[in-house]
């Protein structure tokens, strides 16, 4: 515990620990399925703060072709601006890939620059296909979706296939998808909105166990104690594992979430809850005092309910 590396433990930093979840695996399968079947695009949607972005960040380096060659991926997050223009999206794209551009460059220039960038990127990756991940798609408007159709068309000239995957929050992004169901947006719908994947958080005791097992197996520093052992050295030496609490945790969570109609446990809140337990409550009060009150308190601190239901402070 008093090791000099204590302050650098990954659990002390938010978002530094990335857990492999069942949803991530399923998402990986879906993306591979789309890529291998030649889909030009698809959409991943789910509740806010559920772990979609984290999962995609995790997967972006793992996409491969049928032959096992890596598929280069460009990640791009849409941000809101005062005026939502096409040039604005191109500019954001250039920024996302760190491509130099002038402050007053026209959309034409920006589009050319980003296309040439994608061509070079595919060439250097020795791949004829690219995946563009567009996060926070609910901030786009339907006109801006044409950008991605243009990118697809222009890259096609050089035999480069671009698959655009939109990631958005449920239900905001579905409103945009509904708009594309109109006849005049058939070209957009046909390209990007034929494949859908709903990203869920943790939804069973089994999934909780799988995540907690990773706390028992991941080690810091490398070859050192496990995450659980780092904070609970004595109980772990006596045979305690964090995974053994999974059933109880899931049960307490279910009872806590049921009145609020929360169907799945977002990864952000799950990690926050477990970190709270592992770093604070269990070392302070002891493993023996683990009970529902402790889990409820941790869930309160994670902000799960307050993210869904506004309560007057």
């Amino acid at each position, binding site marked *: 515990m008093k090791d000099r590396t204590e302050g650098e433990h990954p659990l002390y930093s938010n978002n530094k620990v990335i857990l492999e979840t069942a949803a991530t695996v399923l998402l990986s399968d879906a993306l591979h399925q789309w890529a291998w079947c030649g889909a030009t695009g698809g959409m991943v949607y789910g509740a806010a703060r559920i772990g979609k972005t984290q999962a995609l960040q995790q997967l972006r380096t793992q996409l491969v072709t049928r032959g096992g060659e890596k598929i280069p991926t*460009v990640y791009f997050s849409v941000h809101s601006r005062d005026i939502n223009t096409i040039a604005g999206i191109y500019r954001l794209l250039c920024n996302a*890939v*760190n*491509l*130099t*551009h*002038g402050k007053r*460059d*026209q959309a*034409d*220039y*920006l589009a*050319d*620059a980003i*296309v*040439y*960038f994608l*061509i*070079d*990127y*595919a*060439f*250097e990756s020795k791949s004829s296909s690219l995946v563009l991940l567009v996060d926070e798609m609910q901030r786009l408007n339907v006109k801006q979706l044409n950008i991605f159709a243009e990118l697809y068309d*222009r890259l096609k*000239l*050089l035999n480069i296939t671009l698959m655009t995957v939109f990631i958005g929050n449920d239900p905001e992004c579905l409103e945009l998808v509904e708009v594309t169901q109109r006849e005049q947006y058939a070209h957009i719908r046909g390209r990007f909105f034929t494949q859908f994947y709903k990203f869920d958080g943790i939804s069973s005791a089994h999934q909780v166990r799988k995540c907690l097992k990773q706390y028992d197996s991941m080690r810091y520093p490398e070859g050192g104690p496990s995450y659980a052992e780092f904070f609970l050295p004595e109980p772990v030496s006596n045979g305690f594992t964090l995974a053994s609490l999974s059933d109880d945790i899931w049960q307490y969570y279910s009872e806590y979430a049921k009145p609020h109609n929360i169907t799945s446990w977002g990864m952000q809140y799950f990690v926050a809850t477990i970190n709270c337990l592992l770093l604070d409550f269990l070392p302070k009060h002891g493993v023996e005092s683990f009970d529902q009150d402790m889990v409820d308190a941790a869930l309160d601190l994670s902000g799960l309910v307050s993210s869904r239901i506004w309560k007057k402070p």
Partner: protein
Amino acid sequence: MIVNATYNYGNRFCRPCESQFCVARRIISMNPGIAIAKTKHLYRAMSETQSNLNTAFLGEDFAPFFEKHYNRVMHNLRQCPICAIKLFHTPIFQYEWLTHCPIHQESFMTRCHVCRKPFRKNIDIRNKCKGCGIVELSDFAEAYDEPQSKDASKRLLNAYKILFHAERSTKESFENSYVYFVDTTGVFQWKKCYESDLTYPSIMQHSLSDLDPSDLLDLRLETYSVAHKVVELQEVALENPKNYRSEEQSYCEALENLEALLPIDLEVTNTILDWVQSRTLQSHVTVLGQYHRTSIDTFDGWPHFCPSCFAFSLWFYSLAESKYALDVWSQKYGSIFTNSDCPWHFIVPNMYPATLAKSTADRHFISTALFDRWLYRRGLLIGFQQILEYCQSFDPTNLRLIKTTWFPFLKIQEPTWNKSDRLRKFEAFSRDNVIDFYYCDEDPLSCVKDFDDLSDRSQSCSMFQIALDQHNGFYRLEKGLKVVNHSLSSTDFLRAHTYIRSLLPAPSNHHFRELKKYRKILNEKTDYGEIYFKSSY
């Protein structure tokens, strides 16, 4: 990769043996909206990629050879029309003796066949042209629809191999390789309009060097001596070909223009300087500027003499004098270099080969611009070669030899000379000191500045004379630059002067450091003018 990618480098479209022009065109096309000034460093960044590609394509031996030509001759760019559409240009296209593209067998053009404008090194972002400017993505797709065929690559590779050997081998081996190349593949359609059995004017004979070229292979004299055979003469159907004026022929007239010749002068000057540098290396102690800056006292240390430096010094002096101070003399005395025994007349503008014409029984030929430029360049090189040979041959201790054989060419005439007090002073001085001066008959005063200041070191007097004449030459040069020419304004001279200075190579050893002294003399009117007579002005 994404983090470092601030510009589009266009690696996808990178091809071996591309010239800087080609890279510039691609990079500016791929970074639309970016100021050209900002993209300049991209050319340098591309060089590593290009270098690896060229090494893979040409082989390790050839790659450095290409690098040497990467920035070659960006003025008067020549381009194959098909290559222009396919966004390709390679330095080999700039060789003047090459008349057709080795890949497509098309004639080279100096104007874009799409927009009819001359090819420009500085591509503007507004210049959208498929043939010479920035292009759209669809044009890229069209240009790179299929990779350069193996056949085309092989032709290009062969061309570079020929060049590579030509610049490093003897005349005979180059000729052999040339014949082999033409006979077997036939892809180079070098026009052989001039056959060796035709009789060229005598001026051509002078240009064929009989001197030992062992030290000057790097100057590519041997390449030129073969290449001239394939330079095209233009056939004209006029009775008097000398009066013929075609569009191309107008370049011959432009040769008399200072700006037209400056690039050739600079190229040759840089070539010779490179050669001097490679020959003398760092161990050399003699400074290049010594021969025209030092005083009689410093010339006492004669062991510092270096033939190469001295030869360049004389050559450069003569070139500059004849080119930029020409009008000062020609108005009254004509050129001092027009000597029938010496091929120096090559560098005399009055003897430009523009007037060169060949007339057979029923056909007339006039020289083309390519030929004129080649001949002019060759004249400069031959001039240096002969000066160098002379400098290497004489014994530095026998200074009289220098005087008698060399000075007639450098002597500045003074027709209005009168026997003045200074001459009488000089005669008395030489009589008292029993010094046999080898001055020119016309103007002994030009040898000395003030006899009162001279010591009795007779040898030093002669050396001082050399130094003095060189001073004089540079002083004249400076004056010449400021004299308003009939055709060029003083501003033009000044601009040309600045151009020379900007393009001279960066100082890399003592020679080039000392070269600043030239520049200083060229740029500043110092008190050098006071140390010798001014009567010639």
